[in-house]
């Protein structure tokens, strides 16, 4: 059950990211003026933009509940039921204080300092509990819960402060972090995909390079989110140039932001291709397939970026651009979770030979 739940949480997170993209791309972010309720209700009339925004909230709630269940199950497996109870208490404190503060902010316009203090206190306690968890799986599940609650808070702040750019970018950044954690947890809990699993010897990879590539993809996603949320997506509408030049000068910084996102796409393409080729040479099965999928995803992503511009940010290519970015990051994170450092492998083999 725990395996299926972890896999479901990771898959549902991808759906959640797409739903979040649809919220932004249909201008539905403020369709529900309040948070956590929508027009004071948990079951508002589901029509138009309200349906889009509230569906996003409902999927987020489902992801949150899956994560809670994973925390409980992993801690119970580690015989740390007491810690699960403590985490439930800390979560209640964080969510209770957030909802109360959100309501006060909506009604009075002021965010109560007490609410903020209680949320910070809850997170401090949560951090303490994560350290106390004995198993890595439980630590990951608890960290995932901390992230998904933080993501909910950021979602609330986007509504209550009427879509501030920084919070919107942080909202996407956190979603990608959570996706990575959920994916690693799902892979760890599914035997056969774990690096230390019995069976064929683990596949080695240049993990330093893999980490660097994953970080570059994450950075590119943040650049894209900044382009999206500052309205810089169409400041250059000619391709491949921008306003007739590769790098126009004497223009607004938003133009450079847009071009930086375009240029960095090719850095990502080079990094992903290099990493993928190195892994594919010494791998087999799923890992090899994932390695080869990387460059293909970057090419699809670049094509979707072009389509986004030529269709003037049409809903389908724009949302698919977000999805492909998330899948590319997931691809590299999965490779990190399913491979072992080459030097570790070399250290293991002589011991086996001597034995």
């Amino acid at each position: 059950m725990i395996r299926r739940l972890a896999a479901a949480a990771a898959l549902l997170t991808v759906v959640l990211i797409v739903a979040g993209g649809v919220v932004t791309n249909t201008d539905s972010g403020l369709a529900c003026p309040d948070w956590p309720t929508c027009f004071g209700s948990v079951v508002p009339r589901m029509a138009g933009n309200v349906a889009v925004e509230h569906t996003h909230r409902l999927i987020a709630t489902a992801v949150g509940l899956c994560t809670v269940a994973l925390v409980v199950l992993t801690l119970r497996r580690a015989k740390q039921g007491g810690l699960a109870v403590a985490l439930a208490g800390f979560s209640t404190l964080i969510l209770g204080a957030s909802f109360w503060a959100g309501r006060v902010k909506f009604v009075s316009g002021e965010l109560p300092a007490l609410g903020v203090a209680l949320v910070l206190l809850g997170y401090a306690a949560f951090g303490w509990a994560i350290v106390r968890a004995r198993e890595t799986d439980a630590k990951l599940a608890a960290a995932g819960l901390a992230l998904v609650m933080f993501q909910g808070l950021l979602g609330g702040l986007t509504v209550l402060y009427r879509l501030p750019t920084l919070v919107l970018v942080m909202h996407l950044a956190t979603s990608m972090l959570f996706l990575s954690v959920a994916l690693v947890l799902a892979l760890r809990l599914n035997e056969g995909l774990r690096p230390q699993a019995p069976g064929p010897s683990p596949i080695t990879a240049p993990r330093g390079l893999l980490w660097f590539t994953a970080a570059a993809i994450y950075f590119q996603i943040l650049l894209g989110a900044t382009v999206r949320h500052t309205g810089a997506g169409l400041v250059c509408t000619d391709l491949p140039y921008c306003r007739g030049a590769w790098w126009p000068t004497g223009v607004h910084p938003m133009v450079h932001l847009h071009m930086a996102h375009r240029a960095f796409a090719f850095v990502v393409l080079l990094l992903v291709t290099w990493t993928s080729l190195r892994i594919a040479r010494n791998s087999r099965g799923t890992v090899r397939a994932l390695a080869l999928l990387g460059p293909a995803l970057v090419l699809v992503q670049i094509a979707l970026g072009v389509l986004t511009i030529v269709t003037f940010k049409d809903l389908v290519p724009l949302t698919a651009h977000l999805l492909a970015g998330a899948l590319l990051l997931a691809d590299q994170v999965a490779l990190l979770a399913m491979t072992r450092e080459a030097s570790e492998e070399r250290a293991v083999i002589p011991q086996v030979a001597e034995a």
Partner: protein
Amino acid sequence: MTCSKMLALAAALSMPLAATAETIEGSVDFTGKPPVAGKLHREADPFCAKKTMTDPTVEVKGGKLSNVWVHVTKGAKDAAPPASVINMDQKDCMYTPRMTTAVVGQKIEAKNGDPVLHNVHTYLGASTVFNKGMPNDKAPPIETVAKEAGMMKWKCDVHPWMRGYIGISKSGLQAVTGDAGSFKIDNVPPGKYTIESWHEKYGTKTQEVTVEAGKGAKITFKYDGTEKGT
């Protein structure tokens, strides 16, 4: 029948109709402290940056709120679409007018009066109606028809501050508040109606009104600035 007789007959037939067509008039009051209109950041496009403009989202003069769509939502019969065409222009990187109205079935025409690219991205609710580019002022107008009742939102993704609105109704019993925050809906038959006001920032308010023959009706909507509409 001669032409003059036909005209006389037409005038006689139209008299009872004219006698029963009343007006609903009123105003939209803003009782709170109006927000200070901030500068629009249009610097990313050199052409748009030539003119400095402030955010026209909330315009209050003398305690009256302009650009509010006031329309009958219940009690009215559907009307035939007028032959006139509703124009939505793009001038100085702004939609002009910011808000207007149309009747279902009425033609709408979008023009680009600027020498720069605008894309006309229109929505009804969360759905895109159309999304087309107009490269410059030489681009042919985009022609469309108001297909559904509701608020048709107009957006330019190239210049994200550009917003326009066309309130579309089936009955045609509607108006937009002008600079004085007042409105007048003509040709309203006597009866009971539900009237809704809609503002792009402060959302909707609803009132019931009874229009009596020979009297018409007067109503006032009130916003205080704490409303959080969509």
